[in-house]
């Protein structure tokens, strides 16, 4: 485990020494701050609008941080040839891959926590309440979803030729699943065979990232009984970890067979 955490530590150091996170966070703060200062249409419920914009920015920013950080890990190591002195040490390729995953996931988690704390402050300043349990569930499930996306991106980074192609494909798949994933089986009902069966199969195979999305509950302030039960959150965590593990194991198998020269 020490070797895995050593690799993860370098990933985290790289992220906080780069400017991506700071830029995205400042942009989110600026846009949300402007919304907060203005009171469009003198609407009493303007806070819902502010929360929706802020959460949307958090989702976009976290996805950008997760995908761009994970996509460049292995290609950057190969391009800058830092992979060579690293693999000349007693570390296996799967340890490198898992270390990269842990580093990206932890770094993204810390960034996400900062975003959610900011969101909590914005929300509390207008609503004068802070439903910590709801926000924690939202943060936690969001982080689990990012774990799947990071593992998928790491797989793409060893299977696809360029980071740009990988990032584009991962963004399309992620946004596609978030927007359409929950409706694929219903769409399939209106299609002819074999497309219907194919779409139904896709519905059952893909990771349902939309299940991790608690934005609507948060925006409309549905707390208490409307929130998922903690056992469901635990179920979501296991579901997320299972998909992350699947993508990660596949990535390790692909990476293990890759000649590095």
């Amino acid at each position: 485990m020490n070797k895995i955490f050593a690799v993860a530590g370098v990933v985290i150091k790289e992220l906080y020494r780069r400017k991506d996170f700071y830029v995205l966070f400042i942009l989110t703060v600026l846009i949300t701050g402007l919304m907060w200062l203005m009171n469009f249409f003198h609407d009493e419920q303007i806070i819902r609008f502010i929360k929706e914009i802020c959460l949307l920015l958090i989702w976009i920013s976290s996805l950008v941080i997760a995908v761009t950080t994970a996509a460049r890990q292995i290609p950057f190591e190969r391009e800058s040839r830092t992979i060579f002195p690293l693999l000349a040490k007693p570390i296996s390729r799967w340890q490198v891959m898992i270390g990269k995953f842990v580093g990206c996931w932890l770094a993204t988690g810390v960034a996400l926590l900062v975003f959610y704390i900011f969101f909590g402050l914005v929300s509390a300043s207008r609503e004068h309440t802070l439903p910590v349990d709801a926000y924690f569930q939202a943060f936690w499930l969001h982080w689990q979803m990012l774990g799947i996306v990071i593992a998928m991106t790491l797989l793409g980074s060893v299977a696809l030729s360029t980071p740009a192609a990988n990032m584009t494909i991962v963004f399309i798949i992620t946004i596609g699943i978030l927007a359409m994933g929950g409706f694929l089986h219903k769409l399939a009902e209106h299609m002819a065979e074999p497309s219907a069966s194919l779409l139904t199969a896709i519905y059952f195979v893909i990771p349902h990232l939309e299940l991790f999305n608690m934005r609507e509950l948060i925006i409309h302030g549905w707390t208490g009984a409307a929130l998922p039960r903690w056992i469901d959150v635990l179920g979501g965590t296991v579901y997320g970890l299972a998909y992350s593990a699947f993508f990660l194991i596949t990535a390790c198998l692909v990476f293990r067979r890759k000649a590095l020269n």
Partner: protein
Amino acid sequence: MNAVLRTENLRVEYRSRDLKQQTKVALAGLDLSVQTGEVFGFLGPNGAGKTTTMNVLLGYVNATAGAAFLFDVNVREPIARQRIGYLPELTYYYKFLTAEELLRFYARIFEIPKNETETRIDRLLKLVELEHARKRPIRTYSKGMQQRAGIAQALINNPDLLLLDEPTSGLDPLGRMKVREIIQRLKNEGKTVFFSSHELGEVETICDRVGILHQGELKVQGRVDDLVKEHQCNLEQVFLKVVGYQPQAI
């Protein structure tokens, strides 16, 4: 003496994706043996297979046939690299890290205890004369400083075998001298050094034995003194003879 580095009938082929192109044989049955405590110079013209051999020893490339061993452990096992230090030809390190962070990272890979790590970092940064720059990111270092940081990382685990890939390539005369001094010091400490180089004068000075590789085959292997005596010329001329160099009239 025990062989710390050994290859047995090592063969590496690179298959081309283009069906019309033939498979390239990079190594054709290499049998090599480096004994404890010796400095072994691995020579050959560009494309001879030196880098491929290094790549197999370090586990980057799998052999098509045959096997390679470090301390009698097959190089396919990561643990085979527990007692080696590797210095690549060019500096390939995380440039956003400082020298001490880089050494701390590699020390964790070797699972060296924390207090021992700090002692070794202090000692190594002193050895490579980088104490003054230990807290600066590597991207701010000159080429010579980066190469010295490379030497420090190669020594962090106090290795018994050092694999050096053209360690003085691209360095100024002062930098070369420093690297040579460090190799000499390691030799005096009884470490085994396996290094590839094009600097034949340097090889002649430092090495106990050399192997000359050409077109994937080991053409000559022996003690430097013996080769020089046998061919009655210096190592450079031995090298040129072995690789079949014919001077052309201009």
